[in-house]
Protein backbone atom coordinates (compact mmCIF):
# COMPACT_ATOMS: atom_id res chain seq x y z
CA UNK A 1 0.00 0.00 0.00
CA UNK A 2 1.50 3.24 -1.13
CA UNK A 3 2.25 5.43 1.87
CA UNK A 4 1.23 8.68 0.28
CA UNK A 5 -2.12 7.33 -0.85
CA UNK A 6 -2.83 5.95 2.62
CA UNK A 7 -1.88 9.21 4.32
CA UNK A 8 -4.07 11.16 1.94
CA UNK A 9 -7.17 9.06 2.54
CA UNK A 10 -6.66 8.97 6.30
CA UNK A 11 -6.39 12.74 6.17
CA UNK A 12 -9.62 12.95 4.18
CA UNK A 13 -11.31 10.61 6.63
CA UNK A 14 -10.32 12.67 9.67
CA UNK A 15 -11.31 15.95 8.02
CA UNK A 16 -14.77 14.84 6.93
CA UNK A 17 -15.40 13.25 10.33
CA UNK A 18 -14.64 16.50 12.06
CA UNK A 19 -16.86 18.27 9.56
CA UNK A 20 -19.63 15.82 10.50
CA UNK A 21 -19.12 16.53 14.20
CA UNK A 22 -19.20 20.26 13.49
CA UNK A 23 -22.39 19.80 11.51
CA UNK A 24 -23.94 17.93 14.41
CA UNK A 25 -22.85 20.56 16.87
CA UNK A 26 -23.90 23.64 14.97
CA UNK A 27 -26.64 22.75 12.53
CA UNK A 28 -28.33 19.93 14.40
CA UNK A 29 -28.08 20.87 18.06
CA UNK A 30 -28.35 24.12 19.91
CA UNK A 31 -24.68 24.38 20.67
CA UNK A 32 -23.95 28.07 20.94
CA UNK A 33 -21.97 30.54 22.98
CA UNK A 34 -24.52 30.23 25.73
CA UNK A 35 -23.58 26.62 26.36
CA UNK A 36 -20.31 27.78 27.75
CA UNK A 37 -21.34 31.17 29.14
CA UNK A 38 -20.60 31.84 32.78
CA UNK A 39 -23.56 31.64 35.11
CA UNK A 40 -24.57 32.58 38.64
CA UNK A 41 -27.05 30.82 40.88
CA UNK A 42 -30.15 32.18 42.61
CA UNK A 43 -32.90 30.37 44.46
CA UNK A 44 -36.69 30.56 44.43
CA UNK A 45 -39.24 28.91 46.70
CA UNK A 46 -42.49 27.51 45.39
CA UNK A 47 -45.53 25.88 46.98
CA UNK A 48 -45.90 23.62 44.00
CA UNK A 49 -43.50 23.19 41.10
CA UNK A 50 -45.92 21.12 39.05
CA UNK A 51 -44.09 19.36 36.23
CA UNK A 52 -40.96 21.51 36.29
CA UNK A 53 -37.83 19.45 35.62
CA UNK A 54 -34.16 20.00 36.22
CA UNK A 55 -32.54 21.50 33.09
CA UNK A 56 -35.85 23.08 32.19
CA UNK A 57 -35.51 26.57 30.71
CA UNK A 58 -35.68 29.85 32.63
CA UNK A 59 -37.13 32.51 30.37
CA UNK A 60 -37.72 36.20 30.61
CA UNK A 61 -39.85 37.93 27.99
CA UNK A 62 -39.90 34.55 26.26
CA UNK A 63 -36.13 34.38 25.79
CA UNK A 64 -34.08 31.68 27.49
CA UNK A 65 -31.79 33.31 30.06
CA UNK A 66 -30.83 30.28 32.12
CA UNK A 67 -31.62 26.74 33.26
CA UNK A 68 -33.08 25.04 36.31
CA UNK A 69 -30.08 23.61 38.09
CA UNK A 70 -31.61 21.78 41.00
CA UNK A 71 -34.95 21.13 42.68
CA UNK A 72 -34.98 20.33 46.39
CA UNK A 73 -37.66 19.84 49.03
CA UNK A 74 -37.36 21.89 52.21
CA UNK A 75 -38.58 19.71 55.09
CA UNK A 76 -38.75 22.74 57.40
CA UNK A 77 -41.09 24.91 55.38
CA UNK A 78 -42.56 22.10 53.23
CA UNK A 79 -41.81 24.16 50.14
CA UNK A 80 -39.91 23.38 46.98
CA UNK A 81 -36.53 25.07 46.74
CA UNK A 82 -35.49 25.61 43.12
CA UNK A 83 -31.93 26.60 42.19
CA UNK A 84 -31.69 28.61 38.97
CA UNK A 85 -28.56 29.12 36.90
CA UNK A 86 -28.77 32.47 35.15
CA UNK A 87 -26.28 33.67 32.52
CA UNK A 88 -23.98 36.25 34.07
CA UNK A 89 -24.83 38.85 31.46
CA UNK A 90 -28.43 39.04 32.72
CA UNK A 91 -29.12 40.64 36.08
CA UNK A 92 -32.59 40.82 37.60
CA UNK A 93 -33.98 43.41 40.07
CA UNK A 94 -34.79 42.38 43.63
CA UNK A 95 -38.52 42.61 43.10
CA UNK A 96 -38.60 40.21 40.16
CA UNK A 97 -41.52 37.82 39.99
CA UNK A 98 -40.77 34.13 39.26
CA UNK A 99 -43.65 31.99 38.08
CA UNK A 100 -43.99 28.50 36.70
CA UNK A 101 -45.58 28.60 33.26
CA UNK A 102 -46.52 26.07 30.69
CA UNK A 103 -45.26 26.07 27.12
CA UNK A 104 -48.33 26.14 24.95
CA UNK A 105 -51.34 24.42 26.43
CA UNK A 106 -49.98 21.07 27.57
CA UNK A 107 -46.26 21.45 26.89
CA UNK A 108 -43.23 21.37 29.13
CA UNK A 109 -43.08 23.70 32.12
CA UNK A 110 -40.56 26.45 32.57
CA UNK A 111 -39.81 29.33 34.92
CA UNK A 112 -40.74 32.76 33.69
CA UNK A 113 -39.07 35.80 35.24
CA UNK A 114 -40.98 39.09 35.26
CA UNK A 115 -38.53 41.87 35.97
CA UNK A 116 -39.55 44.46 38.58
CA UNK A 117 -38.44 48.05 38.92
CA UNK A 118 -36.00 47.94 41.80
CA UNK A 119 -32.58 49.51 41.32
CA UNK A 120 -30.83 46.81 43.30
CA UNK A 121 -30.16 43.48 41.54
CA UNK A 122 -30.42 39.98 42.98
CA UNK A 123 -26.86 38.95 43.88
CA UNK A 124 -25.35 35.54 43.20
CA UNK A 125 -26.71 33.14 45.82
CA UNK A 126 -29.62 35.44 46.48
CA UNK A 127 -33.31 34.51 46.42
CA UNK A 128 -36.25 35.61 44.34
CA UNK A 129 -38.69 37.19 46.74
CA UNK A 130 -41.97 36.78 44.90
CA UNK A 131 -42.98 33.51 43.35
CA UNK A 132 -46.07 32.03 41.80
CA UNK A 133 -46.51 28.30 41.92
CA UNK A 134 -47.54 26.12 39.03
CA UNK A 135 -51.18 25.90 38.18
CA UNK A 136 -52.25 22.37 38.92
CA UNK A 137 -55.01 21.34 36.55
CA UNK A 138 -56.96 19.29 39.10
CA UNK A 139 -57.12 22.18 41.56
CA UNK A 140 -58.25 24.47 38.76
CA UNK A 141 -61.05 22.13 37.84
CA UNK A 142 -62.19 21.60 41.42
CA UNK A 143 -62.04 25.39 41.92
CA UNK A 144 -64.21 25.88 38.87
CA UNK A 145 -66.71 23.30 40.02
CA UNK A 146 -66.77 24.77 43.51
CA UNK A 147 -67.41 28.25 42.09
CA UNK A 148 -70.11 26.92 39.86
CA UNK A 149 -71.69 25.13 42.81
CA UNK A 150 -71.58 28.22 45.05
CA UNK A 151 -73.00 30.37 42.24
CA UNK A 152 -75.88 28.00 41.87
CA UNK A 153 -76.39 28.10 45.65
CA UNK A 154 -76.35 31.92 45.64
CA UNK A 155 -78.97 31.97 42.93
CA UNK A 156 -81.04 29.49 44.86
CA UNK A 157 -80.67 31.62 48.03
CA UNK A 158 -81.51 34.79 46.13
CA UNK A 159 -84.75 33.35 44.87
Amino acid at each position, binding site marked *: *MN*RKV*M*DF*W*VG*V*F*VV*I*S*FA*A*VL*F*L*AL*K*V*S*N*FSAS*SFASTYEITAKFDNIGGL*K*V*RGPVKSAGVVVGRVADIRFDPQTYEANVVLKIESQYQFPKDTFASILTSGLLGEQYIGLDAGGDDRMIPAGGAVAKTQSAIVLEKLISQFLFNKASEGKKDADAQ
Partner: protein
Amino acid sequence: MQALARFFSMVGANTIDRIWRLGFAARFFIGMLSHSGETFRRPRLLVRELYVSGVLSLIIILVSGLFVGLVLGLQGYDTLQRYGSSEALGILVALSLVRELGPVVAGLLFASRAGSSMTAEVGLMKATEQLTAMDMMAVNPLARIMAPRFWGGVLSMPLLAALFTAAGIFGGWLIGVVFIGVDEGAFWAQMQANVNFRDDVLNGIIKSAVFGVAVSLIAVFEGFDAVPTAEGVSRAITRTVVTSALAILALDFVLTSFMFRGL
Protein backbone atom coordinates in the same frame (compact mmCIF):
# COMPACT_ATOMS: atom_id res chain seq x y z
CA MET B 1 -30.85 -38.90 36.61
CA GLN B 2 -27.43 -39.43 35.11
CA ALA B 3 -28.36 -37.28 32.14
CA LEU B 4 -29.32 -34.48 34.51
CA ALA B 5 -26.03 -34.72 36.35
CA ARG B 6 -24.17 -34.63 33.07
CA PHE B 7 -26.16 -31.60 31.97
CA PHE B 8 -25.25 -29.71 35.11
CA SER B 9 -21.60 -30.59 34.93
CA MET B 10 -21.57 -29.48 31.29
CA VAL B 11 -23.10 -26.13 32.23
CA GLY B 12 -20.63 -25.82 35.07
CA ALA B 13 -17.65 -26.65 32.89
CA ASN B 14 -18.88 -24.21 30.26
CA THR B 15 -19.30 -21.41 32.77
CA ILE B 16 -15.87 -21.99 34.28
CA ASP B 17 -14.41 -22.04 30.80
CA ARG B 18 -16.10 -18.74 29.93
CA ILE B 19 -14.96 -17.07 33.12
CA TRP B 20 -11.43 -18.31 32.57
CA ARG B 21 -11.51 -16.95 29.04
CA LEU B 22 -12.85 -13.65 30.31
CA GLY B 23 -9.94 -13.45 32.74
CA PHE B 24 -7.55 -14.27 29.94
CA ALA B 25 -9.10 -11.54 27.82
CA ALA B 26 -8.77 -9.08 30.68
CA ARG B 27 -5.07 -9.86 31.09
CA PHE B 28 -4.64 -9.56 27.33
CA PHE B 29 -6.32 -6.14 27.43
CA ILE B 30 -4.07 -4.88 30.20
CA GLY B 31 -0.99 -6.29 28.46
CA MET B 32 -1.98 -4.57 25.24
CA LEU B 33 -2.62 -1.25 26.99
CA SER B 34 0.74 -1.35 28.70
CA HIS B 35 2.44 -1.98 25.37
CA SER B 36 0.60 0.84 23.63
CA GLY B 37 3.42 3.33 23.88
CA GLU B 38 4.93 2.13 20.63
CA THR B 39 1.71 2.78 18.72
CA PHE B 40 1.88 6.45 19.52
CA ARG B 41 5.62 6.78 19.12
CA ARG B 42 5.40 5.37 15.59
CA PRO B 43 2.48 7.12 13.90
CA ARG B 44 3.07 5.07 10.73
CA LEU B 45 1.54 2.05 12.44
CA LEU B 46 -1.51 3.99 13.57
CA VAL B 47 -2.03 5.60 10.17
CA ARG B 48 -2.12 2.20 8.51
CA GLU B 49 -4.74 0.99 10.96
CA LEU B 50 -6.85 4.14 10.63
CA TYR B 51 -6.82 3.47 6.92
CA VAL B 52 -7.84 -0.18 7.24
CA SER B 53 -10.49 0.31 9.94
CA GLY B 54 -11.69 3.79 9.09
CA VAL B 55 -11.19 4.70 5.48
CA LEU B 56 -12.15 1.28 4.15
CA SER B 57 -15.38 1.38 6.17
CA LEU B 58 -16.38 4.80 4.85
CA ILE B 59 -18.49 3.60 1.95
CA ILE B 60 -20.58 1.16 3.94
CA ILE B 61 -21.05 3.66 6.78
CA LEU B 62 -22.08 6.57 4.57
CA VAL B 63 -24.40 4.54 2.36
CA SER B 64 -26.03 2.76 5.31
CA GLY B 65 -26.40 6.02 7.17
CA LEU B 66 -28.10 7.59 4.20
CA PHE B 67 -30.53 4.70 3.86
CA VAL B 68 -31.34 4.64 7.57
CA GLY B 69 -32.06 8.36 7.40
CA LEU B 70 -34.27 7.91 4.36
CA VAL B 71 -36.30 5.19 6.06
CA LEU B 72 -36.56 7.17 9.29
CA GLY B 73 -37.82 10.11 7.29
CA LEU B 74 -40.44 8.03 5.51
CA GLN B 75 -41.68 6.10 8.50
CA GLY B 76 -41.46 9.08 10.75
CA TYR B 77 -43.49 11.27 8.45
CA ASP B 78 -46.09 8.57 8.00
CA THR B 79 -46.69 8.33 11.75
CA LEU B 80 -46.31 12.01 12.64
CA GLN B 81 -48.64 13.38 10.02
CA ARG B 82 -51.49 11.34 11.52
CA TYR B 83 -51.26 13.59 14.56
CA GLY B 84 -50.63 16.70 12.56
CA SER B 85 -47.09 16.86 13.90
CA SER B 86 -45.19 16.44 10.67
CA GLU B 87 -43.09 19.45 11.58
CA ALA B 88 -41.48 17.38 14.33
CA LEU B 89 -39.86 15.17 11.69
CA GLY B 90 -36.54 16.94 12.14
CA ILE B 91 -36.57 16.22 15.85
CA LEU B 92 -37.50 12.60 15.31
CA VAL B 93 -34.78 11.91 12.77
CA ALA B 94 -32.10 13.83 14.63
CA LEU B 95 -32.73 12.47 18.10
CA SER B 96 -33.10 8.86 16.94
CA LEU B 97 -29.85 9.03 15.05
CA VAL B 98 -27.79 11.08 17.47
CA ARG B 99 -28.78 9.21 20.59
CA GLU B 100 -29.20 5.62 19.41
CA LEU B 101 -29.06 4.62 15.78
CA GLY B 102 -25.85 6.46 14.99
CA PRO B 103 -23.64 4.83 17.62
CA VAL B 104 -25.38 1.44 17.59
CA VAL B 105 -25.84 0.76 13.87
CA ALA B 106 -22.48 2.26 13.00
CA GLY B 107 -21.01 0.06 15.72
CA LEU B 108 -22.62 -3.07 14.31
CA LEU B 109 -21.44 -2.23 10.80
CA PHE B 110 -17.97 -1.47 12.12
CA ALA B 111 -17.88 -4.83 13.86
CA SER B 112 -18.82 -6.66 10.67
CA ARG B 113 -16.51 -4.74 8.37
CA ALA B 114 -13.48 -3.61 10.34
CA GLY B 115 -13.75 -5.95 13.30
CA SER B 116 -13.87 -9.08 11.21
CA SER B 117 -10.95 -7.89 9.10
CA MET B 118 -8.90 -7.25 12.24
CA THR B 119 -9.65 -10.74 13.52
CA ALA B 120 -8.84 -12.24 10.14
CA GLU B 121 -5.50 -10.46 9.88
CA VAL B 122 -4.37 -11.35 13.37
CA GLY B 123 -5.73 -14.90 13.18
CA LEU B 124 -4.00 -15.60 9.89
CA MET B 125 -0.76 -14.22 11.23
CA LYS B 126 -1.11 -16.60 14.14
CA ALA B 127 -1.93 -19.57 11.91
CA THR B 128 1.08 -18.99 9.66
CA GLU B 129 3.43 -18.57 12.65
CA GLN B 130 4.12 -14.93 11.80
CA LEU B 131 3.29 -13.88 15.37
CA THR B 132 5.66 -16.49 16.78
CA ALA B 133 8.35 -15.48 14.30
CA MET B 134 8.01 -11.87 15.39
CA ASP B 135 8.18 -12.91 19.03
CA MET B 136 11.31 -14.94 18.33
CA MET B 137 12.84 -11.88 16.66
CA ALA B 138 12.40 -10.10 20.00
CA VAL B 139 9.62 -7.85 18.75
CA ASN B 140 6.53 -8.04 20.93
CA PRO B 141 3.49 -8.75 18.73
CA LEU B 142 1.24 -7.13 21.35
CA ALA B 143 3.01 -3.84 20.78
CA ARG B 144 3.59 -4.14 17.06
CA ILE B 145 0.46 -5.87 15.77
CA MET B 146 -2.36 -5.84 18.34
CA ALA B 147 -2.10 -2.44 20.00
CA PRO B 148 -2.02 -0.41 16.75
CA ARG B 149 -5.09 -2.27 15.48
CA PHE B 150 -6.91 -1.73 18.76
CA TRP B 151 -6.19 2.01 18.86
CA GLY B 152 -6.96 2.37 15.17
CA GLY B 153 -10.38 0.92 15.86
CA VAL B 154 -10.97 2.99 18.99
CA LEU B 155 -10.16 6.22 17.15
CA SER B 156 -12.08 5.33 13.99
CA MET B 157 -15.34 4.32 15.64
CA PRO B 158 -16.55 7.72 16.97
CA LEU B 159 -15.59 9.35 13.69
CA LEU B 160 -17.55 6.78 11.73
CA ALA B 161 -20.55 7.14 14.05
CA ALA B 162 -20.57 10.90 13.52
CA LEU B 163 -20.44 10.39 9.76
CA PHE B 164 -23.26 7.85 9.93
CA THR B 165 -25.42 10.25 11.93
CA ALA B 166 -24.71 13.15 9.61
CA ALA B 167 -25.48 11.02 6.57
CA GLY B 168 -28.69 9.89 8.23
CA ILE B 169 -29.87 13.39 8.99
CA PHE B 170 -29.10 14.33 5.43
CA GLY B 171 -31.20 11.36 4.32
CA GLY B 172 -34.05 12.40 6.57
CA TRP B 173 -33.89 15.94 5.19
CA LEU B 174 -33.77 14.61 1.64
CA ILE B 175 -36.93 12.56 2.03
CA GLY B 176 -38.79 14.90 4.35
CA VAL B 177 -38.06 18.32 2.96
CA VAL B 178 -37.06 17.73 -0.62
CA PHE B 179 -39.39 14.90 -1.60
CA ILE B 180 -42.34 15.04 0.74
CA GLY B 181 -42.39 18.77 1.30
CA VAL B 182 -42.14 19.25 5.06
CA ASP B 183 -41.33 22.84 5.81
CA GLU B 184 -37.55 23.29 5.72
CA GLY B 185 -37.47 26.02 8.32
CA ALA B 186 -39.55 24.05 10.80
CA PHE B 187 -37.48 20.94 10.13
CA TRP B 188 -34.21 22.56 11.17
CA ALA B 189 -35.54 25.02 13.75
CA GLN B 190 -37.41 22.42 15.79
CA MET B 191 -34.43 20.10 15.52
CA GLN B 192 -32.03 22.71 16.81
CA ALA B 193 -34.32 23.72 19.63
CA ASN B 194 -34.67 20.19 20.89
CA VAL B 195 -31.31 18.57 20.32
CA ASN B 196 -28.99 19.50 23.15
CA PHE B 197 -25.28 19.34 22.40
CA ARG B 198 -24.17 18.15 25.81
CA ASP B 199 -27.00 15.76 26.52
CA ASP B 200 -27.56 14.29 23.09
CA VAL B 201 -24.62 14.78 20.76
CA LEU B 202 -21.89 14.40 23.36
CA ASN B 203 -23.54 11.37 24.90
CA GLY B 204 -23.84 9.82 21.47
CA ILE B 205 -20.12 10.38 20.90
CA ILE B 206 -19.29 8.86 24.27
CA LYS B 207 -21.41 5.83 23.41
CA SER B 208 -19.64 5.31 20.12
CA ALA B 209 -16.26 5.62 21.83
CA VAL B 210 -17.26 2.92 24.33
CA PHE B 211 -18.50 0.69 21.50
CA GLY B 212 -15.22 1.32 19.67
CA VAL B 213 -13.23 0.06 22.64
CA ALA B 214 -15.44 -3.00 23.03
CA VAL B 215 -15.44 -4.01 19.36
CA SER B 216 -11.73 -3.40 18.82
CA LEU B 217 -10.83 -5.35 21.93
CA ILE B 218 -13.04 -8.28 20.98
CA ALA B 219 -11.77 -8.30 17.40
CA VAL B 220 -8.08 -8.26 18.29
CA PHE B 221 -8.50 -10.75 21.13
CA GLU B 222 -10.42 -13.28 19.04
CA GLY B 223 -7.71 -13.12 16.41
CA PHE B 224 -5.01 -13.56 19.04
CA ASP B 225 -6.83 -16.46 20.66
CA ALA B 226 -7.89 -18.20 17.45
CA VAL B 227 -7.04 -21.84 16.88
CA PRO B 228 -4.16 -21.57 14.39
CA THR B 229 -5.87 -23.31 11.50
CA ALA B 230 -7.99 -22.06 8.63
CA GLU B 231 -11.14 -23.35 10.32
CA GLY B 232 -10.10 -21.83 13.63
CA VAL B 233 -9.66 -18.41 12.06
CA SER B 234 -13.05 -18.48 10.35
CA ARG B 235 -14.69 -19.45 13.61
CA ALA B 236 -12.89 -16.64 15.38
CA ILE B 237 -14.22 -14.15 12.83
CA THR B 238 -17.77 -15.36 13.42
CA ARG B 239 -17.24 -15.05 17.15
CA THR B 240 -16.02 -11.50 16.74
CA VAL B 241 -19.12 -10.37 14.88
CA VAL B 242 -21.55 -12.13 17.22
CA THR B 243 -19.85 -11.13 20.47
CA SER B 244 -19.41 -7.55 19.29
CA ALA B 245 -23.07 -7.27 18.38
CA LEU B 246 -24.16 -8.55 21.78
CA ALA B 247 -21.68 -6.33 23.56
CA ILE B 248 -22.85 -3.24 21.68
CA LEU B 249 -26.49 -3.86 22.45
CA ALA B 250 -25.85 -4.66 26.10
CA LEU B 251 -23.59 -1.63 26.58
CA ASP B 252 -26.15 0.50 24.79
CA PHE B 253 -28.75 -0.42 27.36
CA VAL B 254 -26.39 0.26 30.25
CA LEU B 255 -25.21 3.60 28.87
CA THR B 256 -28.68 4.74 27.86
CA SER B 257 -30.06 4.08 31.30
CA PHE B 258 -27.30 6.20 32.82
CA MET B 259 -27.33 8.99 30.29
CA PHE B 260 -30.95 9.48 29.44
CA ARG B 261 -32.54 8.77 32.75
CA GLY B 262 -35.13 11.35 33.65
CA LEU B 263 -34.80 13.43 30.52
